[in-house]
């Protein structure tokens, strides 16, 4: 009775695992894989064997997802990698700010950490803009290929979800990097002075 319940639990877990395969692959081999799993002598061979079967399937899932990844998804993955250094710097800076705020640490001198700080800044801060440009370009091309009617559907957004996410993250990071002083200055000036002095306000805030 307990063995049957364990077997049913393992089967349910394996069936859930199969959902991680790419759609096309799962539709073609999902049923056969589950059938083969049912055939395996899991009860006789023990827990180690079951673990090996799950491990083998997990590795295969990673491999099949990488193989089936389309060019747009590859650009999205590249975009995520490009944004990684900025995310790290942002995270570390945030922690340092909090530590500084509670008096647990003083803000470090970045030049002491990286002697060639200017180059590091350019590499770290330009990377999200590059990720944004690449993915926005890919998304625009995809939309042009699909046509305006198809590009404005939920299906298009869903099938380009990763690219869209990188565009949003890249845009957010780029705006933060190049405008984290200028944007608040501009908004504040706009609220106080209205649209009348927008030209001088723009010039003033770009120097902020």
């Amino acid at each position, binding site marked *: 009775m307990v063995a049957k319940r364990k077997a049913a639990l393992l089967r349910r877990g394996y069936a859930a695992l199969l959902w991680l395969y790419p759609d096309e*692959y799962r539709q*073609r*081999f999902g*049923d*056969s*894989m*589950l*059938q*083969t*799993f049912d*055939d*395996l002598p899991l009860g006789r061979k023990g827990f180690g064997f079951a673990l*090996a*079967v799950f*491990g*083998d*399937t*997990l*590795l*295969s*899932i990673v*491999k*099949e997802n990488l193989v089936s990844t389309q060019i747009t998804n590859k650009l999205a993955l590249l975009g995520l990698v490009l944004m990684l250094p900025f995310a790290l710097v942002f995270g570390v800076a945030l922690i340092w700010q909090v530590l500084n705020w509670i008096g647990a640490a003083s803000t470090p001198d970045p030049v002491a950490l990286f002697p060639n700080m200017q180059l590091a800044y350019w590499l770290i801060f330009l990377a999200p803009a590059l990720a944004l440009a690449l993915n926005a370009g890919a998304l625009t091309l995809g939309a042009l290929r699909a046509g305006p009617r198809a590009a404005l559907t939920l299906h298009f957004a869903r099938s380009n979800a990763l690219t869209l996410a990188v565009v949003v993250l890249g845009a957010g990071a780029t705006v933060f990097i190049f405008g984290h002083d200028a944007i608040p200055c501009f908004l504040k000036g706009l609220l106080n002075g209205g649209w009348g002095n927008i030209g001088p306000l723009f010039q003033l805030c770009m120097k902020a």
Partner: protein
Amino acid sequence: MRMAKINSPLTPAIFHILLALSTHERHGYGIMKQVEKDSAGSVSMGPGTLYGSLNRMLQAGLVKESDKRVDPEMDDARRIYYKLTGLGQKLLAAELERYKHLLSLSEKSKLSAQRFVYGR
């Protein structure tokens, strides 16, 4: 469907699947059992490796799905049997020929596994 290409030397998984299908059409678990038997337990593949390899072999035209249901004890509507194609047979023959050549080469040079073990 795009045609993939599988080059020699074959991976152990693909070689053993070709070998398992060379005598009979088999379903997934049948292939797994035969591979374990052929390799005396040294090659054991899970469903992930098996179906990943079968996918590539189908794409390369080395195997195809069969209509036959040849294992009445284990038959099930979902069970799909696979068989070798002409190309699969040719590739297996070429790979076996390659192994034979390597074996004769090692025999000519009087090589043995023990010769490579230091201190013996």
